[in-house]
């Protein structure tokens, strides 16, 4: 079974995998737009692009987790529809591992179909099988060790061995290096080359430019759901790749962000929060929008979480010249700091509660009726209605659960909740992730308005064009450190270089 299709060369006959016109639409967002992709046996195809380019959607379609809205997927020229990936020899190693921490290596590798009869597990065979797959990738692990004792790199090996057991034809690796150390990464590339030799087709999803060149035979670039380029790795220059990834700066409607004053409102000094944040310093002035840029895993979210007191940290945070010692969301709110988290459904919204309560959640203290002590909220309904109108939130009624709103309107209601307390500092983590173009533009305008009204705005975004459009300055993070700072006009290529590569010295301005 493992020895199927030994030839490692494409060319004759249909390719191992071919997609044509693959399209996937989520609500108002076209996540993947007519994407063509081919993978030969024994070929490593890198799919690169920024966050939100459609890489994960592509992966989920190829694994049969999503149904395409248009287009087709073919294996060996035969179309696949409503399929189980494992039955066609396809498997993916997802970015988030799906291992059972308390089970052994052997159990994890074989978990999808434990060897044995009549419900009884044959442990000998389980161990032999697991060993067999670990041998393929050249990983030496203690079969009986519980997975929780392994390093991240070792866990990845288990994850790959497990995937190989289900799939011996096409392996999809989604950002496999994101959490690996240097030596672990090299080991992984070794494994990928080994699997390529065995005739596997490999799709390598990444946005790290350097490593793409280390393993890929062919590079396909996605942007905004489109395939914007695809060429053999040897024929695509690094510069070309960077330009394809970022694209030209989208300029539908400029955003008026005003002019910052000189007064420093938020000052962060030597902020560290191991293991993700190490010695980050920056300042945000009144009326200024500061962008935090960096690759996935660079520590962007962790930095803002540490500032807002959501994770333990060392270092100093100053608000309008005053040192803030005890930082908790409660104390930060009282100091006029707003925080809109990345995962709005889990950490932002009160899904089952009505829109009205969601809108007034931050300002509710101010609405408490003073006449009858503590009872009633004076004008809550009115202020909620006013916020909904101001922020142009489309809703079926103020009493409708907020979870029934669209992503864009949910995000606008979160922003409205915070802006109702007229914050001095606003921290936004990926404020436009997963919302449609129209809502995105409105959110951009809101951020601009906030800055013009004198708030200090800190924006984390994985979309560089967005930051370049909004921010007055951009701080680049890499591996938890602030490595460079740019002011307008921004040089996208330089920013990407600092985010993705190992250039050591930091420039100031450009």
């Amino acid at each position, binding site marked *: 079974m493992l020895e199927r299709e030994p030839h490692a060369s494409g060319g004759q006959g249909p390719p191992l995998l071919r997609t044509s016109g693959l399209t996937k639409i*989520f*609500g108002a967002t076209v996540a993947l737009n007519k994407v063509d992709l081919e993978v030969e046996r024994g070929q490593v195809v890198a799919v690169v692009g920024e966050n939100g380019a459609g890489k994960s959607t592509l992966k*989920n379609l190829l694994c049969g*987790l*999503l149904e395409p809205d248009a287009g087709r997927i073919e294996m060996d020229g035969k179309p696949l529809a409503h399929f189980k990936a494992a039955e066609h020899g396809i498997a993916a190693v*997802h970015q*988030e591992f799906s291992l059972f921490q308390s089970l052994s290596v052997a159990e994890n590798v074989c978990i999808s179909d434990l060897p044995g009869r009549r419900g009884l597990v044959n442990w000998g065979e389980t161990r032999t099988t697991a060993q067999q797959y670990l041998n393929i990738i050249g990983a030496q692990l203690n079969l009986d060790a519980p997975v929780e004792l392994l390093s991240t790199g070792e866990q990845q090996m288990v994850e790959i061995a497990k995937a190989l057991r289900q799939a011996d034809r096409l392996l999809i690796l989604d950002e496999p290096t994101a959490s690996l150390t240097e030596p672990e990464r090299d080991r992984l590339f070794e494994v990928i080359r080994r699997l390529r030799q065995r005739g596997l087709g490999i799709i390598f999803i990444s946005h790290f430019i350097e490593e793409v060149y280390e393993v890929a035979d062919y590079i396909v670039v996605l942007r905004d759901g489109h395939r914007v380029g695809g060429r053999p790795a040897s024929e695509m220059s690094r510069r070309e790749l960077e330009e394809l990834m970022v694209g030209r700066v989208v300029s539908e409607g400029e955003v008026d962000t005003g002019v910052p004053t000189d007064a420093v409102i938020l000052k962060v000094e030597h902020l560290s929060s191991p293991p993700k944040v190490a010695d980050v310093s920056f300042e945000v002035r009144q009326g200024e929008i500061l962008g935090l840029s960096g690759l996935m895993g660079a520590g962007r979210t962790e930095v803002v979480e540490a500032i*807002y007191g*959501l994770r333990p940290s060392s270092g100093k945070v100053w608000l309008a010249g005053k040192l803030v010692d005890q930082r*908790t*969301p*409660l104390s*930060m*709110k*009282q100091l006029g700091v707003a*925080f809109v*988290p990345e995962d709005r459904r*889990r*950490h*932002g*919204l*009160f*899904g*089952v*509660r*009505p829109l009205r*309560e969601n809108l007034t*959640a*931050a300002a*509710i*203290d101010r609405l*408490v009726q003073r006449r009858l002590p*503590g*009872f*009633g*909220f004076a004008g809550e*309904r*009115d202020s909620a*209605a*006013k916020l909904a*109108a101001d922020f142009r939130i489309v809703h*079926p*009624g*103020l*009493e*409708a*659960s907020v*979870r*029934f709103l669209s992503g864009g309107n949910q995000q606008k209601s979160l922003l409205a*909740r915070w802006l109702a307390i007229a914050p001095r500092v606003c921290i936004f983590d990926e404020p436009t992730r997963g919302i449609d173009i129209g809502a995105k533009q409105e959110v951009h305008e809101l951020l601009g308005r906030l800055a013009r009204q004198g708030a200090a705005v800190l924006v984390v975004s994985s979309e560089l064009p967005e930051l370049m459009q909004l921010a007055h300055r951009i701080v680049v993070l890499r591996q938890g450190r602030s490595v460079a700072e740019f002011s307008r006009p921004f040089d996208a290529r330089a920013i990407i270089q600092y985010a993705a590569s190992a250039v050591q010295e930091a420039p100031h301005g450009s």
Partner: protein
Amino acid sequence: MAANRQTRYSLSSVWLSVRNARWLPVLLGILLLGVVFSQLSPAFLKFRNLQNIAAQSSVTGIMAAGMTFVIMTAGIDISVGATIYLSLVLGNEIALKSTTPFVVYLIYPLSIVLGSFLGLINGLLKDSLRINPLVTTLATYIIYRGIATHITKAKDIHPPESARFLGIGSVAGVPAPILTVLVVVIVSALVLRYTRFGRYVLAIGASESAAYQSGLPVRQVLIAVYVIAGACAGLAGLVLLGRVGAVQNDMGIGIEFTVITAVVLGGTQLSGGRGSIVGSLLGAILLVMINNGLNLIHVSPYIYDIVRGSVLVGAVFIDRLSTAQRSVAGPSSRVVRAV
């Protein structure tokens, strides 16, 4: 123009709040059962019997009000039955052994204070040990009952008549148990709906993480709801004591499950964030009605529990059907499930 829009309550929003009223099904259940029982037994609709049902629902109803706060935050408190017993036993040690009538009256505030204190222990334990509330209150359930039995040596306590007011007394012709449960339910419902604290409870139940990140005092609120549940248990204990006339060793055994059943029947979600106090009271009434009606039509008492349990399964099933219809099945939810 804006003012106009703000103050007008449109028909659709009224309809929405009716549709969102999660106590509606249990009310319909009570009416339906009422029709059925009144057809089968002429005694059912007699004023006397209805008053009986109301009085019998009082103990569960009072406790259910407190429990609703806890469940609304996605918590649970199974120590409330033991809290009743221990707060009465401790109260007896201090107040009921006295021969001075004035000191005997102290049992009323004392039982509530002791109940709150036991609830506070629950809340603090859960907060500091960070173990889930089921385990925490299971442990304190055992401990509380253990302490109480240790004190009484499993013997009954017979209090003076003046300690029984909440069970057998009446004010202006209204039986005290009914009055008590009404006051508790009305105050609780107002607190939940019209105070900052109530709003925090609902927000935490909807998403604890979002509540924390929005700068709400999550820890304090999560402790406070157990204090409320304990206080309600202490008060319910006084009613029970009055009705039974003695503090018995098996007092309150199993009542926590009746209370939780009432809350769930009343439409409060175990996952928190949605429900109502009034619903919980209706749930308590429905449970008593089942017993009462079956008793009147001479059904064997041994099947009461089977019926009550089945009603619960049915209620939860119906709720699930109606929520499933309303939920928007987006593609993202599919991905989450698949991955």
